């Protein structure tokens, strides 16, 4: 890449040492940015400069850098993952910006995602939602042949659309209510669509929604910001299916409190 094509960028990055101290936006300037660099590679270059200057590096979460692990986050210019269609932060490339641009980088902000340091937040609340029922109880060894229960292709495809969620939290960060209903709806919807998931669907839905609410996530008021920023393009139809499952469950779910003991 010739020097003529490189850019100089002004960054305003959220720095916060730990949850106890206050954070602020700090100005940085990065030169010689190649348009082929990824956004995270641009931050890598900045971090190398900070080390040479004896400053603390900017802490950010990342891992696979190919848009599938869900570890990277960042609000870029006020939008989760930068607001590019179907793109995680690690897949944002600098060719999407131009020389002289000022870019503001902040952490995902939500009640349920406390800041750990700089751009790193704690998303363990997502694990807690899954723990509340985001699974099919099929202990190892129980399974029948994979073709024993047929699943029509359109249903399998729709379940896959929902299952594509990478658990990054962009939906929460972009929702004015800090709701995790797209994340949760995608899982409930996936498992409700599949015949294997239906036996537990009512219990799953009630427990997951209850847990979601107690973790500090807000309710869905159908802004659809989540769908717009979801890097995997997950549709809010899955929230609708979750709502149907929830309504159904409130009418039908009944579990007698019986002892499982016996002779």
């Amino acid at each position, binding site marked *: *890449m010739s020097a003529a094509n490189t850019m100089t960028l002004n960054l305003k990055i959220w720095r916060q040492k*730990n949850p106890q101290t206050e954070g602020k936006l700090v100005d940085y300037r990065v030169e010689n940015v*190649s348009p*082929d*660099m*990824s956004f995270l*590679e641009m931050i*890598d270059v900045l971090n*190398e400069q900070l*080390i*040479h200057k004896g*400053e*603390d*590096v900017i802490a950010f*979460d990342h*891992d696979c*850098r*190919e*848009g*599938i*692990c869900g*570890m990277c986050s960042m609000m870029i210019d006020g939008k989760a993952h930068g607001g590019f269609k179907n*793109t995680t932060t690690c*897949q944002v*490339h600098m060719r999407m910006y131009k020389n002289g641009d000022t870019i503001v980088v902040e952490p995902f902000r939500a009640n349920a995602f406390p800041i*750990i*340091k700089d751009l*790193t937040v*704690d*998303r*363990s609340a997502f*694990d807690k939602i*899954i723990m509340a029922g*985001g*699974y*099919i*109880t*099929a202990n*190892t*060894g*129980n*399974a029948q*042949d*994979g*073709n024993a229960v*047929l*699943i*029509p*292709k359109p249903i*399998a*495809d729709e379940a*896959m659309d929902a*299952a*594509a969620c*990478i*658990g990054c939290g962009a939906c929460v960060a972009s929702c004015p209510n800090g709701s995790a209903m797209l994340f949760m709806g995608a899982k409930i919807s*996936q*498992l409700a669509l*599949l015949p*294997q998931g239906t036996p537990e669907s009512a219990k799953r839905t009630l427990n997951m929604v209850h847990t979601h609410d107690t973790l500090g996530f807000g309710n869905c008021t159908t802004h659809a910001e989540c769908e717009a920023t979801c890097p995997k393009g997950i549709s809010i139809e899955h929230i609708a299916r979750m709502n149907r499952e929830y309504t159904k469950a409130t009418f039908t779910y009944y579990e007698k409190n019986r002892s499982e003991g016996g002779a």
Partner: protein
Amino acid sequence: MTINLDPKIPAGDLSYKWDKHKFDSKLINPANKRKFTVIVVGTGLAGGSAAATLAELGYNVLSFCIQDSPRRAHSIAAQGGINAAKNYPNDGDSVKRLFYDTIKGGDYRAREANVYRLAQVSNNIIDQMVSQGVPFAREYGGYLDNRSFGGSQVSRTFYARGQTGQQLLLGAYSGMMKMVAKGKIKMFNRREMMDLVTVNGKARGIIVRNLITGELERYAADAVLLCTGGYGNVFYLSTNAKASNASAAWRCYKKGAAFANPCFTQIHPTCIPVHGDYQSKLTLMSESLRNDGRVWVPKKKDDNRKPAEIPDEERDYYLERIYPSFGNLAPRDVSSRQAKFRCDDGVGVGPTKQAVYLDFRDAIKRDGKDTVAGKYGNLFEMYERITGDDPYKTPMMIYPAVHYTMGGLWVDYNLMSTVPGLHVLGEANFSDHGANRLGASALMQGLADGYFVIPYTLGHYLASTPLEKVTIEDNAFKDAEQAVKLQTSKLLGIKGKRTVDQFHKALGHYMWDYVGMSRNETGLKKAINGIRKLREEFWQDVNVPGETGDFNLELHKATRVADFLELGELMALDALERKESCGGHFREEYQTEDNEAKRDDENFAHAAVWEFTGQNSSPIRHKEELIFENLKLATRSYK
């Protein structure tokens, strides 16, 4: 010290070995299982499935992962699929054929009994994952769909779009979360294993760093399962995730677990080429693309025409030309090497000339754009996001990249290392893929180990081994923790001039140039000397800013690179000592007239097993002879 390399392969006919072994294994009654605690390090397919299954059986499981959630382990990035011998397409598959393809694909450097067991349990994996809600691709009739992968002439690969690893991992993760909710798994996120603790020669615990607080923590158990993946990041640039590292395995090596075949590295043929010094990782384009994409280079050197302007007769579809029966689905090692040969000959394409075309023109013409998009849409989008080129209109440019490591800690048939109680699962062990892994077999192996092998073999170990009471106050734990503390303060105290990444990149250059796709004696010796020198410089001149009691990302990287700097040397040494070519290990001195790998079965039909003898002394190379009772050693041909 002598190490015991008895593979403990059960006697009898190959197809009955596993059944017999399961019956011969001791059982622990359900009420007693809850008296045992098992540490599982890593939550990928191997670790996740093992943790969930052992917890279901009643063991107390302590599970550790380096990321913020077990759902992020790098198994998630596997794209193409998972093999199984179901033979649903009725095209001639069987357990025996999957076994044969895997041994042959590994160039006859894997253990027969392990591979046969892998093929046997492969079908159970598909059933298990379907029952857990993995939305595998289906036909319109509702039946599971299959596709083809390299190194095989049957369609045995099950897939969930281009995200099979993600779906399988989320399946294993959901099983884990179910058991976390029940209290049978205690989950420790953002923890990195810093050392193995042995008591009376047995693995009894680990020291981990809490990556957020920087504090060291001690955990004790009755056995330790290491499921920490491979060491491809020793090359700096690889398709592995940034946090993937070798340290857990390397620390175990230094505590007595022998390391087998470290030089067996898989360089995957279809990755997006390197484009600059700042590059932090490489991205794989699934092998499944080779079902429909055709690989070619221009016949003429320095042909600067656009690919579409080059007529067919001036294109060299070299895989189809050299390997007519497998064509574009030749195995990974063979395809990668051929791409390298073309670029070495000067017919490579793209700005760096270090790339070949993967072209979908004919598939789009034949099947229509929609069909191609249905199969590979998400991969095409990913390619376009990274490169700015649209593969529907112009061929992809691809080049090989480090992807997987077949070598790893040595294990016996029970997946136990040379340290009693330390079991190693998935990519972290060496057991099933020989010198080259076939596509869609890593997912199969990780889940086979975790779901269907370790529950039996671990039970037998726990039932038949006297385990004295151990607590984290024992000296073994204190000493191990102290050693980690010392290393940490040493790293933070150097305050040199070069960053951790600078050292890592320099190591990567040695590895790629001399221990990469093709190796020779001179280069390997150069690498060994260069890496030694680099290691000395690292300990004098590295700059690790920050402090211990903090979320110190540079410190985390520094401890990993310190270990890579040792492992890299062992890989080069292993490659130097293996004076033959096999699978992914190509020694230029040992090749046929038409540049194919030339094996030496008389002298090298063994696993090279390295024993650590101390920081300043040379490791010892042991051998586990590989005995082929069921397959005849044959020259691997895909022509």
